């Protein structure tokens, strides 16, 4: 199956959903682990305490890919994450994360053909407020459909 066929079959629908509670300690610990020093991100007593912008990238769903997605994981590696922040994530928030495949495309490089799969997680808070969008790229090397 080539990239266009995969894209037509697997994009455009939510294939996984998770719920989690966000506590102050996890926000502060993650910020400190990232080297953040701004008390807005590291001190739960700060009046504007909130998650660092990349906090949602630490959250994973229960599935990396939709069921029956034909990927050869032994040839895959992480091709990076990007996050778009829509609203602050704060301590006490109840987050819902919904996973979908946003894009599938091919490119060629020194090592030959590659398949890129963009796993998108949209995060929502109370009242269905859109908090963040995280795009995680997975690349499969030696893709020769």
């Amino acid at each position, binding site marked *: 199956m080539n990239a266009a066929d995969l894209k037509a079959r697997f994009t455009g629908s939510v294939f996984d959903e998770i719920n989690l509670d966000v506590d102050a300690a996890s926000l502060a610990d993650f910020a400190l682990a990232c080297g953040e020093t701004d008390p807005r991100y590291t001190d739960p007593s700060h009046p504007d305490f909130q998650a660092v912008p990349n906090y949602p990238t630490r959250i994973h769903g229960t599935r990396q890919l939709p069921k029956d997605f034909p990927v050869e994981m032994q040839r895959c590696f992480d091709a990076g994450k990007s996050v778009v922040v829509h609203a602050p994530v704060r301590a006490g928030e109840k987050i819902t994360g919904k996973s979908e495949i946003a894009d599938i495309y*091919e*490119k*060629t*490089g*020194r*090592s*030959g053909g590659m398949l*890129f799969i963009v796993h998108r997680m949209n995060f929502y808070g109370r009242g269905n407020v859109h908090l963040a969008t995280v795009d995680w790229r997975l690349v499969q090397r030696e893709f020769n459909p």
Partner: protein
Amino acid sequence: MILDLHSHSIASDDGRAKVENYCQWIARRAIPLDGFVLTEHRQYDFQSDYRALEDRFGLLILKASEVETEYGHVLVFGVNEDLRAAFDFARVDNRLADVLLHARRCGAVAVPCHPGRPKVGLCAHWETRGPVAGVEIVETLNGGSREGENELALRYADAQGWRRIGGSDSHIVSHIGRCATRFEGSFQGIDGLVAALASGRFDACRVASPDPLA
């Protein structure tokens, strides 16, 4: 006039540089470039307008494309609606002969880039698949090349009589201007670049920055 003819911004999936940051870097490091061309992967950006940045930084900022063929990657300068409709820029299996033909028909110029690079460079495929008519210019100085790749490209260019351009292939800010193309005289706009490439009065060059930290 010196232009970096091969660069990528965040519009490319693997680009990490904002166009404004390229401009700031060139200014801060006093890199002797007159401008650069954004050659985004497998697409052409019709929307973006960089005239304000051009005025602010005194740089020429042009738009082009880097498409993929069975002979490797190809820069296309002078993309217009006709050319955009002629083949699918997003595909990785375009035919080089078609890209060259359509570019010429639509008033554009197609230039195989990093030809010495394995898998995605012209030279290796030239040996295994055979020559392709219509190649006139190749990128012999690519800022992302590994040892020997630019040298291989140069040997092919000399042997085949192809003219030479250079570009940084920058994906991050600090790589802009690593390689470039020196043109005789000056021009404005993409039509000027296409005409200058057609004239043949240019060559690949390395750009020396006066800033020792650059």
